């Protein structure tokens, strides 16, 4: 029997990535991780703003030193073109003929103005799958001209309002939250469209609004309002009011916390055996008893955790079968055996800054391979290579474009 084919799922699929910052590039990264050949279009006159975002290698700023940039653009090639000039626009249109998928995240309306909208691209390649992403989408009364970032997406999806302490302003989730949520919906939509195209030859235009994608992860809270007319409010402390004990407890050291969820009866029994002491009190025997004495129970658990090291508690509780985990900071993550042994963090070697680590693919497949994780490209690193091999341009043609200042 011959070995089963091992080519990565998207090997041979061509992606033209016109997007920048986070959502679009993260979507392109998923596709690159699945084996697609992704060409990022950038311009040194208008660099991807994510290059100004940390962490920077050794804390020193610089457009080629942003680890966030590498993490979002790993495994892609990069061409530098000024797409606002007619000759640059023509290069994009010619790359559209090569592409199966085009990604873009311009402010809605901008690409149409540049005559690079879906209808323009479709004229060159009628099977193209084009995905646009923006804060509020391409249609609707407030779409055109609206640009935004992931913190705004979080605010408009109902997430920010619900995260914070009741006696203070909402804090919101960490970072530009919808930038982490939205790529999932874009990538799933693109893959579904690729599947349909392989059967029917149909392309598609896909429009994903980042604020709307965020609502998907908040569905239970949205339903609570829609069905029960209750507006969910921020409640601060971790854990559900319906489950006890469940929450985070302080440990020894500065800002060290353990998450413990022993709300299931078997987990509760195990926790009680490990901690003993006050937890043995008969008032904690039943769920109702624990709910009615919640503050006291939480205090007793915190009294046990606060003098111990957080990692030691995790091991001790896990050995007894109690769901518990360090509330991990970056230092915990890089020491975590789950992460180390899975090979999720990959070393990259960059000619500018040397070594750093970036994340690997977000899932594994047991038959088809996934490409090794590589660094992100430098601005325009592959311009000449792509123009020559993908578009078949001669050295003279490329030199002419370069002299005209189009390839920067």
């Amino acid at each position, binding site marked *: 029997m011959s070995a089963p084919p091992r080519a990565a799922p998207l090997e041979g699929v061509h992606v033209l990535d016109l997007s920048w910052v986070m959502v679009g590039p993260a979507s392109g990264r998923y596709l690159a991780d699945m084996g697609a050949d992704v060409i990022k279009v950038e311009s040194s006159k208008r660099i991807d703003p994510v290059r100004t975002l940390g962490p920077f290698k050794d804390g020193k700023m610089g457009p080629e030193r942003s680890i966030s940039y590498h993490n979002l653009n790993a495994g892609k090639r990069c061409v530098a073109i000024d797409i606002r000039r007619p000759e640059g626009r023509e290069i994009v249109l010619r790359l559209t003929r090569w592409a199966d998928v085009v990604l873009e995240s311009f402010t809605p309306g901008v690409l149409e103005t540049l005559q690079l909208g879906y209808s323009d691209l479709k004229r060159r390649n009628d099977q193209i799958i084009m995905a646009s992403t923006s804060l509020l989408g391409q249609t609707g009364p407030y779409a055109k001209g609206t640009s935004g970032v992931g913190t705004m997406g979080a605010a408009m999806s109902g997430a920010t309002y619900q995260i914070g302490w009741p006696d203070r302003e909402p804090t919101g989730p960490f970072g530009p939250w919808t930038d982490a949520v939205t790529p999932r919906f874009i990538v799933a939509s693109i893959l579904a469209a690729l599947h349909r195209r392989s059967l029917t030859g149909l392309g598609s235009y896909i429009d994903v609004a980042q604020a709307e994608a965020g609502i998907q992860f908040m569905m239970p809270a949205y339903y609570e309002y829609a069905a029960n007319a209750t507006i969910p409010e921020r409640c601060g402390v971790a854990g559900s009011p319906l489950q006890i004990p469940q929450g985070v407890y302080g440990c020894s050291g500065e800002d060290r916390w353990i998450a413990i969820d022993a709300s299931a009866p078997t987990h509760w029994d195990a926790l009680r055996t490990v901690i003993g002491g006050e937890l043995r009190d008969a008032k904690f025997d039943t769920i109702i008893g624990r709910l009615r004495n919640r503050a006291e129970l939480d205090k007793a658990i915190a009294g046990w955790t606060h003098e111990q090291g957080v990692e030691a508690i995790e091991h001790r509780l896990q050995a007894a079968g109690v769901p518990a985990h360090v509330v991990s900071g970056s230092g915990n993550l890089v020491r975590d055996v789950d992460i180390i042994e899975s090979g999720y963090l990959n070393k990259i070697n960059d000619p500018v800054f040397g070594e*750093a680590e970036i994340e690997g693919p977000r899932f594994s497949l047991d038959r088809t391979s996934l490409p090794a994780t590589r660094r992100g490209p430098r601005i325009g690193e592959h311009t000449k290579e792509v123009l020559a091999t993908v578009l078949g341009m001669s050295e003279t043609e490329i030199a002419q474009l370069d002299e005209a200042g189009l390839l920067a």
Partner: protein
Amino acid sequence: MLDDVRVLEISAPETMLAGRMLADLGADVVVVEPPAGSPGRRLAPFLDGIPGIERSLTWQGLNYNKRGVTLDVSSPDGKALTRALATKFDVVIEAAGAGRASPLDSIEFAPSVIRCTITPFVRTGPKSEYAATDLTVMAASGAPTMTGDLDRPPLFFPVPQAMMEAGADAAIAALAGLIARDRDGLGQRAEVSARIAAMMGSFGQALVPGSGNPEAKRTQGAMIVAGVQVPSVYECADGFVLITIGFGPVFGQMTQRLAKWATQEGHMGQRIAEISWPSFIGDLSARKTSPSDLHALVDGLKSLARSKTKAELAEASRRLGLLSSPVMNMKDVAEYAQYRERGLFASVSLEAGREIDAPARFAQFSNYSIEIKRPAPKLSEHSAEIFEAELGLSKTEIQALFVAGEI
């Protein structure tokens, strides 16, 4: 788009979004629950605050567009039924509990089947035996430690998130398997770790030490620039508003327009509007500007925000092109004209005579539309229909399975 794809989902909290995304994209999804109902049916909130197997709103929101059967996948009869059913499906999605082998492990799937398994930690890794819940997996993601205020414990979402993160990545993993199969006809096993899925929301916290940087701390959503705490959320006349102050050639322009507007409205001095905000960071190190200028900007914005409503600030944000938006609660989300008129919502029934609009269309397509074709299945709603049509069981046989407690 996935009309030719059939998905068997062995229901768990982590599979729910995966199955629903595939169903929304057109797949025929059958969800398999134990006879007592899926754990997802016990997730809050509940319709009218009254619990019940058909009353979980989390279940309702993550299971529409699917059909449902019950069977006990761990009993010999249930295994036989699952094995027989699996031959009719292209994709099987499951979530293996911590430290326990999956009941599907004893089933030999056809070579064309794509089996997607979600585990809390990496299935074959050193934490595979860990007991885990949504809270502990989120704790491991690196996001909560960065969320909230440093003088208080880290904050978590009030809605379980690890199950959403894992479900969304499982949909992608299953589709990756499907695309590979389109080419060579062969299935495979895909695996998703909920912890790694949830790390996406930590925005690379795990990369901080490896790039030679110190560990960061949570800052109440604020950024610290030159020692100045720049908030992101401001109190306004009728709630809260988010205002992002950015620098550099792209985002700095927006700050410039914001400062100009705040000055026109009388909330800060003309001098602050005349500072070059795109080049502020560079000018700061060249000592052309000082942290007190940033302080003055923030104070002016606090005053500006307090004088305006969410709607007024949203209008100004659109008109001036600012990085600002209302902090919406779920009522605001439900009523927002942009979502309504764009067609985000589709109507779905929760129980007889109770309909709501669900934010169903996570993507809009030129030649496909996500619709809600059926509400979430009632417990065992389609058992008889599916066992008869797919497995050719007779009415007598189906009744016998029910009497024995298998379905």
